């Protein structure tokens, strides 16, 4: 294990960004992915370790104009208990409810879950369905710079993102869904509890006269990155919910995923699961409308 030469746990975001820019840095939030990866040798520590955990502005869930802002340090437990999210963004709470164990939920942060960039990351799928955008900050040498990026453009491959050197994810924002918005998340692990996703699916849209509109679909663990199911969404968008639309969505889903075979599942099985979960989610959405 490489030794950390510089350690900082600042209270301000500016200081954190400055430290992260000074020299190659590892950024620590909840540590639930980072620490096991370092221990197992899958990831090396950079010479500098910047601990974000004392930065108050990175915490908290709040209304932000027409949207919701999640500080990057928001824990999974905080998402689970939040009244606004429970009421208006239940799909995110649903995913949090399938996230690991209570102990991990207390430590793991939404920012960490995104930056870890696992194709199986549990919170990524509902945030894609909610149309989330990211607020990324960096130190220019004289001041703090901020840029925004749609979540779906954030991921490059397993464990890699578009975060620049020294750049820090500060917050996640998404528009508050309108009252006719419905969304569902389904995670499939081979064991009911405490399991990593073999695949996951999220579907959301606005319910209008027996159809879904402005549909967003996302798939987890079936491509090198969490995948936006654009073709699947198109197969659903504006079409009457029912067996024909379901069949079209299922075949679009099977066509656009790019699953691999690994110790958790074969590509064949992942394809089977995506199809059955997509069909079941659509059926649930359809039947709730009646």
């Amino acid at each position, binding site marked *: *294990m490489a030794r950390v030469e510089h350690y900082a746990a600042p209270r301000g975001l500016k200081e954190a960004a400055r430290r992260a820019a000074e020299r190659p840095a590892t950024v620590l939030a909840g540590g639930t992915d980072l620490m096991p990866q370092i221990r*197992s040798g899958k990831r090396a520590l950079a010479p500098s370790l910047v601990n974000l955990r004392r930065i108050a502005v990175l915490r908290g869930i709040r209304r932000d104009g027409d949207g919701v802002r999640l500080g990057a340090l928001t824990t999974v437990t905080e998402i689970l208990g939040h009244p606004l999210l429970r009421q208006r963004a239940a799909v995110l709470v649903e995913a949090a409810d399938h996230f690991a164990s209570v102990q991990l939920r207390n430590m793991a942060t939404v920012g960490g879950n995104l930056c870890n960039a696992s194709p199986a990351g549990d919170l990524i799928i509902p945030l894609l369905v909610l149309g989330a955008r990211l607020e990324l900050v960096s130190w220019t040498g004289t001041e703090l710079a901020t840029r925004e990026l749609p979540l779906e453009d954030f991921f490059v491959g397993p464990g890699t993102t578009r975060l620049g050197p020294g750049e820090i994810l500060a917050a996640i924002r998404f528009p508050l869904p309108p009252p006719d918005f419905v969304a569902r998340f389904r995670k*499939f692990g*081979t*064991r*009911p*509890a*405490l*399991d*990593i996703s073999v695949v996951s699916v999220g579907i959301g849209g606005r319910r209008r006269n027996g159809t879904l509109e402005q549909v967003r679909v996302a798939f987890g663990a079936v491509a090198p990155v969490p995948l936006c199911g654009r073709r699947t969404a198109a197969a659903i968008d504006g079409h009457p919910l029912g067996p024909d639309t379901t069949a079209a969505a299922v075949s679009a889903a099977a066509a656009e995923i790019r699953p691999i075979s690994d*110790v*958790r*599942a*074969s590509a064949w*099985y992942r394809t*089977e*699961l995506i199809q*059955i979960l997509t069909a079941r989610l659509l059926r649930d959405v359809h039947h709730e409308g009646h």
Partner: protein
Amino acid sequence: MTVIPKETLIGRRIPKLDAPAKTTGETRYINDLALPGMLHGKILRTDRVHARIVRIDTSAARALPGVHAVITAADTPGVPLGHGRDNPPLKGDRVRTIRDEIAAVAADTEAIAAEALRLIRVEYEDLPAVFSVHEALRPGAPVLHDRHPDNIPFTFDYSHGDLAAGEQASDVVIEDTFKLHYVTHCCMGVSGVIATFDTTGQLTIYSQTQIPFLYKRDIAPVIGVPPDRIRVIQPPLGGGFGSKLDIYPFEPICVFLARVTQRPVRILFTREEEFIASPTRQPVEFTLRSGVKKDGTLMFRDARTLHDNGGYTSWGATTPFVMMQTISSLYRVPHCRYHTTVVYTNNPYAGSFRGYGNLQATFAVESHMDRLAEAVGMDPLALRLKNAQAPGETTPQGMHFITCGLRDCLQTAAERSDFVKKHATNRAGQTGPIRRGIGIASLVHVGGGANIYRTDGCGTILKLDDFAQATVLTGASEIGQGSETVIAQFVAEELGLPLTSIQVVNNDTEITPWDVGVHASRTTFIAGNSALRAARKARTKLLAAAGQQLGADPATLDLRGGHVVDATSGEARLEIGKLIRSLHFAGKHEVVMTTEYYEPPSVMQDREFKGNVSATYAFGTQAIELEVDTETGVVRIQKVTAAHDVGRVINRLGIEGQIEGGVVMGIGYATTEDLMVSEGRVLNPCFRDYKLVTAPEVPEIDTTFLETLDPHGPAGAKGVGEAPAIPTAVAIANALYNATGVRFRELPFTPEKVLRRLREAAEGKP
């Protein structure tokens, strides 16, 4: 006048004596032990599956500051260990599996030892490898050990009756091949050992072994220390389940490091190492042919099994010894043949694991009982009852069932689960993706030891101090099975003392008398009988002395609540402590200390594997209800109804835990656990990808204990440590058939495998 009523501890719910320390974190496991000056050992394992070692360069590792010793095979006697004596602790010329030990380091810290391992350079010449029994048996296949050019270290054969006549007389004959996979013990405590020599050369090993006395004998030639110079101390164990029946290379390696450095050395596995370098359950390919008459009478059974031995031979290679008992004797079968071929491969090697082959054998037999029942139009319960053994029978293999609760177990499990009705209703046809099923399966397993050495005994020394504190020195180890508590109960019961007055000492070969070891579900039966008899001798002595002092006939006296009492009225006459003191001080010069060596009434089997190998046998039946999602392959176990012939309940709380733990282990074997081995490598050496059953998946477990009161058992008890894990997987297979009409012949029933099998069956593969 104080009257002490007669009370019994037998059958009560007693929290295990070690539970408070374990739950509060007070227990000191081997991980917590540190001797003054102790060094940390680590082992370099190969990354090749089969290769010749050309050169090992340890110079850079030796030069690292903080490293005290680096050893290779060249620094050791090179005496192999294991049941087949084919496994040198450090491999000098050749590696045969990826776990193979090549070098070891002792250093000031674990981190330095790990760093030193990275500095060792090994040059190999790869050899062709074999990864399946079929490849290994092919003519011209690569040979693993020159002593066995056919790659077959062992075969086992058993038979009774006339197979051809049995087949002739059968109306229906079926044959199937079952494939049973790799699983591993997953002890919460990882493997570890500490070795230390004193200045006179006396060796103390802090070991997790389940067999401390045989351990001394077995390790002595490997390390070149005579057994009388070895002391084995057993710290509390974080799980055994059979895995500590063997000696593994890391133990002698630790001794070598301690000898070279003249310092105490500890080796402690990482979890990943535990998955890769600790043993597994035997993977078995099991072909079974069975025949039955139209009326459901079983006529013959012909079993052929292939065992993947891996690269070396552990005790696990002898599991056929147990497997053939289920083939020959779970149900009455007049004609029977059993053949096992144990085959070397370049896969990880298997060891001993709770049930010892019986999970695999029972899987085949009980799958066939269901298939035969269907073939002759009987329900599965009726066919089993028709062929079930009864009390008093001696099976053709020579197993004498003095007590036998099998029929009662079958009937109880069936009635309590409403098996017959549910089984028929489920079969009648279900629609929709979720199907319900119920399945049943039974077991027989040794319950009174297994006479595989020249003795199957256990020694006890019992001493009473002058305040009536009893110390029981027993050879039998506590590995979490609760034997300490049961032994204390027997002694307290005989001596009329509270449980708090009993201390059980069971972890030091310099103090405790000899015992064979913890295996074969033998401890409650053998060590219990031994302790009970030692206590009875002390009781006799106390009552005789009390009779003399009180001028009473000892037969009219009893021991209760720490007092000598009048047996009829319960009137307290004398404190036991006072009685003992009077034996010291009144010129009698006596102490109350007794010894016992209990040898069960069983025999070693003859060369044909016949003979009454155990003093008693445990039986049980489990009925399992489940739901299967036929679109995803997910199996959800809903309820387990278990009925077990346990002889007599001694500690109700303990035995409930034993049964529930076994059932959960069986559910894991069947539905979630899968040690994935590909080309000799373990693909999932972590709990993220090796899936144990977790608490939310544990179904309702309804357990009934059938008390058959075994005449040889302590207070009538039988051993049931292994029994509950045995029939679970096949009961699940039978329930899957009931739910889907598809026969599952390969474990595990993980969702993907279940879905694949359902698709295969839909495409016409039977």
